[in-house]
């Protein structure tokens, strides 16, 4: 290596920059609570929210728990979503409703049901969609339900590995309509069979809003522990 020092502006080299860094990921804990100087900005919102979330909107006659392959919460959640879409299609009704066990985030305890309880059950702003699938895709859903040891369904049963619809004859159609959420339609929880979709209709309603409406309407929540999925 040869080092040369050049004279008088033959070449311009004005500076050399070096950059070094230090890092720490700082956990936010109680340690920082001592002054709490902006809590006054939050507290009016918190009070308003709590007031609303503590409002009693229904009564649960028993505890609603989610289960695999079946559970009272699975049935209640899918029933209210399915029923809300029964009159939404021209000349037809959706074949069944499919949600996911993982998406039901909280049980409903026996006794008073608050608005906050439904928010805890369904915190996501997922929207209801009606997805049209070709009849051959039904086999993929059957396989999926078996592999997952069941997921919440309404309007259908799974027995001996086959789905039967309660309200729509399978034989006369080349496609069927599933009520679900936009999250699952987009492949959430590996529901990849929705990629086969022929058409999608957005209901323009959130699952949670429909659940709230249904709870208020029922007054006493309808407890149903029907075994809709039977896996041999």
């Amino acid at each position, binding site marked *: *290596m*040869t*080092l*040369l*020092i*050049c*004279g*008088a*502006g*033959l*070449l*311009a*080299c*004005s*500076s*050399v*920059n*070096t*950059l*070094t*860094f*230090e*890092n*720490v*990921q*700082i*956990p*936010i*804990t*109680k*340690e*920082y*609570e*001592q*002054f*709490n*100087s*902006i*809590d006054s*900005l*939050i507290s009016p*919102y*918190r009070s*308003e*929210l709590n007031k*609303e*979330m503590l409002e009693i909107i229904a009564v649960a006659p028993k505890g609603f728990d989610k289960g695999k392959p079946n559970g009272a919460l699975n049935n209640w959640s899918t029933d209210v979503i399915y029923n809300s879409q029964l009159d939404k299609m021209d000349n037809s009704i959706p074949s069944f409703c499919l949600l996911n066990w993982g998406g039901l985030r909280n049980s409903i305890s026996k006794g008073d049901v608050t608005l*906050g309880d439904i*928010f805890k059950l369904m*915190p*996501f*702003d997922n*929207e209801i969609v009606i997805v049209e699938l070709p009849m051959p895709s039904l086999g993929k859903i059957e396989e999926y339900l078996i592999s997952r040891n069941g997921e919440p369904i309404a309007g259908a049963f799974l027995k001996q590995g086959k789905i039967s619809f309660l309200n729509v004859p399978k034989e006369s159609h080349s496609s069927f309509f599933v009520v679900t959420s*936009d999250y699952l339609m*987009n*492949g959430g929880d590996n529901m990849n069979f929705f990629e086969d979709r022929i058409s999608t209709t*957005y209901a323009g309603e959130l699952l*949670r809003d429909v659940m709230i409406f249904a709870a208020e309407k029922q007054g006493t929540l309808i407890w149903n522990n029907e075994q809709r999925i039977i896996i041999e």
Partner: protein
Amino acid sequence: MMNRRNFVRNSVIVSGGVLCAPSLVGQVTLAKPKTTKLTILHTNDTHSNIDPFPENHSKYPGKGGVARRFELIQKVRKEEDSVLLLDAGDIFQGTPYFNKFGGVLEMKLMSKLGYDVATMGNHDFDGGLEGFVKARQFADFPFVCSNYDFKNTPIDGHTQSSTIIQKGEVKVGVFGVGVEMKGLVPDVKYGESVYNNPIDIANDRAAELKRQGCDLVICLSHLGYEYKSDKVSDKVLAQKTKNIHLIIGGHTHTFLEKPTEEKNLIGETVLINQVGWAGINVGRIDFEFDQKIFAKRDVIIVE
């Protein structure tokens, strides 16, 4: 505990094919070396977590909380001259605060905390484009969204493709890249927003910020840290671009213990950092710029 790392670049000004050797300049430096420090604080995926998690929470008992984050930020601001506060998106959605108030409180609080810049995550579309604009009115900081084209949407004019912030003696360029909305965000929520290739855009933006004399170029990214598939992530972004020094990431809720060092298109080191979600942690990176100035006639040539 801080880890000091000698990293990124010995960025050397090269002209006329002549290379200056940084390890040797010390010997011929005429002016005194000058050191400038810049402290970066950052969050991602705060998801409307205004209050701390409850003490009986199964995973994060008593963690997080915006009021506490404010105290931490105030403490750092007292100790340091130059602080930059950044967020990498998904400010909205996750608690009833968003459902009820549409993101207004999140924006008010971020303004109060003194955020300098943020970018949009996929959940920031959850209130629809008009919902974002409505809440955004309460934010007094810019949103940088470089690869979303909002031309024919209500958001048009409410975000910008990059920004330059002078912090002390350091000129910092910040731009932002977001994840593809299709399949992630309902069509009706993003309307006619157009998603452009984040790699191409990042290269364009970073080159432009460098051209405008930025000493440091930061990319706020909501692409996600890493994927098994070939989907574009922060790691891919780092490898396929140049002129970016730091990527502040989000979307995948990744709790990194320390920033990842990745090599860019021309072999320079790029830092990637991400701090999980829900405001449980705040990332802090302190950059030190050492500028050794020497007279123009004292050029060193290494052969």
